[in-house]
């Protein structure tokens, strides 16, 4: 990591780092609010893992370790920017105002989506790796045609970076100078596949070959992620074209609750990244530079616990959907096979009982 150019504004010890291109534009209160968001999303994540372990969720994809990358990027978005997530972007969803219980509808297996993407300007999760990146570029081409000062953001990971769709996205965005930011969280692992198998040249350097800037940012430094993303978005909105941001971070937990990372990676590696914890470092800065008191941190912990408890209640209250709903929105217009299926479920007494 050290041989590469990495944008950093905060050291792992929580000390300010100066950078010739980027400076922190946030005041103490705003930095504290980043800490709050990161703490809450981590708490949502641990609660969700517990819910899965207790058999209340089909699956969960933890984000522990990636809170700075997601909150930094999510908070840099303007309300009218449109973000296209993969399946692990809970921190982005939180920043977009999506209620946590909606994030869990997918993992509770009661929905294939979970929220109204147009309401939150945040698309529904894309599970097939890389698909959403092309969708983001197309959306950006729509922004151009509307003459709007907005940007699209595509979120994906180091694993997805090997997908043809991501590389085609780079070509399209460059050719059309689309107002899109490619935000890759390089968390070093695609399930058990290390990023060294995905790339022989650091990912951010790929952008140069496509003809737009690529930046590697310390993904565990929320201040740097925020500034780098904000700058890339402003550039895109102003007609400056795409940017690839590689947030260099680490997946502290398993790929999902179905995964067992002890089979393929060593504890010593995890331990190294433990010392780079994104929340501890911003906390250290807040104590040292802004005199934030312990009680203020405790208030956030209490708030996060309350959110987690509400989330638990909401998830447990999510009932199995009426089977008849499987036919809703399969098509926009009427379709004979949909009518046929609906009729059959009703006749069998399986669905439509509460309608």
């Amino acid at each position, binding site marked *: 990591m050290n041989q590469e150019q990495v944008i950093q504004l905060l050291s792992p010890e929580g000390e300010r780092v100066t950078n010739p291109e980027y400076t922190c534009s946030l005041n103490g209160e705003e930095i504290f609010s980043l800490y709050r968001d990161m703490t809450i999303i981590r708490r949502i994540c641990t609660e969700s893992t517990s819910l899965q372990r207790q058999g209340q969720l089909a699956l969960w994809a933890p984000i522990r370790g990636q809170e700075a990358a997601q909150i930094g990027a999510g908070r840099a978005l303007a309300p009218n920017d449109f973000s296209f997530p993969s399946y692990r972007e809970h921190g982005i969803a939180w920043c977009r105002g999506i209620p946590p219980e909606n994030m869990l509808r997918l993992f509770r297996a009661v929905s294939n989506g979970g929220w109204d993407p147009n309401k939150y300007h945040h*698309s529904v999760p894309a599970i097939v790796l890389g698909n959403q990146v092309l969708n983001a570029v197309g959306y950006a081409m*729509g922004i151009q*045609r509307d003459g709007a000062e907005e940007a699209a953001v595509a979120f994906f990971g180091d694993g997805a970076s090997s997908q043809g769709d991501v590389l085609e996205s780079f070509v399209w965005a460059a050719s059309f100078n689309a107002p899109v930011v490619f935000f890759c969280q390089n968390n070093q692992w695609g399930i058990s596949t290390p990023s060294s198998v995905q790339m022989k040249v650091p990912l951010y350097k790929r952008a140069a070959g496509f003809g737009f800037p690529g930046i590697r940012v310390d993904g565990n430094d929320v201040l740097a992620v925020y500034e780098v993303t904000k700058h890339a978005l402003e550039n895109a909105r102003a007609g400056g074209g795409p940017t690839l941001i590689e947030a260099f971070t680490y997946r502290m937990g398993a790929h999902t609750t179905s995964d067992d990372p002890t089979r393929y990676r060593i504890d010593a590696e995890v331990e190294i990244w433990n010392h780079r914890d994104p929340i501890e470092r911003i906390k250290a800065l807040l104590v040292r530079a802004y005199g934030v008191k312990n009680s203020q941190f405790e208030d956030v912990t209490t708030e996060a616990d309350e959110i987690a408890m509400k989330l638990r209640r909401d998830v447990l209250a999510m009932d199995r959907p009426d089977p008849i709903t499987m036919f809703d929105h399969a098509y926009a*217009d009427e379709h004979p096979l949909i009518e046929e299926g609906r009729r059959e479920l009703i006749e069998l007494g399986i669905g439509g009982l509460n309608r």
Partner: protein
Amino acid sequence: MTTSTMTMAKALNEGLRRAMEKNKKVLLMGEDIGKLGGVFRITDGLQKDFGEDRVIDAPLGESGIVGTAVGLAIRGYRTVCEIQFDGFVYPAFDQIVSQVAKLHKRSDGAYTMGLVIRLPFQGGIGAIEHHSESPEAYFAQTAGLRVVSCSTPNDAYWMIQQSIEHDDPIIFCEPKSRYWEKGEVNTDVPPRGLFEAAVLREGTDVTVIAYGGTVKTCRRAADTAALEGTSIEVIDARSVAPLDFETMKVSVEKTGRLVVVQEAPHSASIGSEIISELTQRCFYSMQAPGIVVSGYHVPYPPTRIEEDYRPTVERILDGVDRVIGFGK
């Protein structure tokens, strides 16, 4: 009534033009569709008239074409994607099946995936490999998609416009061997709904159902059969997914015999679907099991021998003889 004679290629061109005039959100995207007008010239002159922002010459990547059209749909645009040839659609298969077909559902109806994927399909032009395929069943199998095919210039003119106006994603299969055949186009009134089959020739002995390029072959077969005293009813399915079984059922109940004609191989195909469903719906009216006259279960052959692969008038008439002679 305003009618004029034009080729199917021109009718598609005029249909696209009219759709673009009516709705500024309609875009075209594909490979070589601008200055060149597409390899089949379907978009000839449209970039000149509507500009590069609406008639987009895409980089050469089919997944890119469809994947960005998805994003444009989310933004409120209606993109007509041109896939250059049937055999080149597979790089886009993932986007079509995983996103195009499912995003309306996944977003609980918030997204409208109103986009059209134009696919020149079937053979008969003496091309090299990958230029003559019939992949319609792959898409017909996928919930969330609709698949249609035109067989005449008039249908081409209207069905492309109806497809663009429709809120569901549509795979629009164009029989490339018929692009240059002329027909009457009535530019005032559409002939029928997009998903309705058409009885093109009435008959009493056998129902023959086809779509796309094989429709005309079936009409020729019906002409020949009539000389021999056999009365064939020819139906153009038009919509491959969903299929208009109501129209087909009325015909099969009358004739009692059914032959489906397609270029795609028979196994797990549109033809087998039609036979299966109509056998259930018309069982007591049928005098013989329905059969499919189709391409063989082989990769599309080198085109020097493609006429021995594609259903010909002779093979269709042989199929007709088999259902008439059943049990005799």
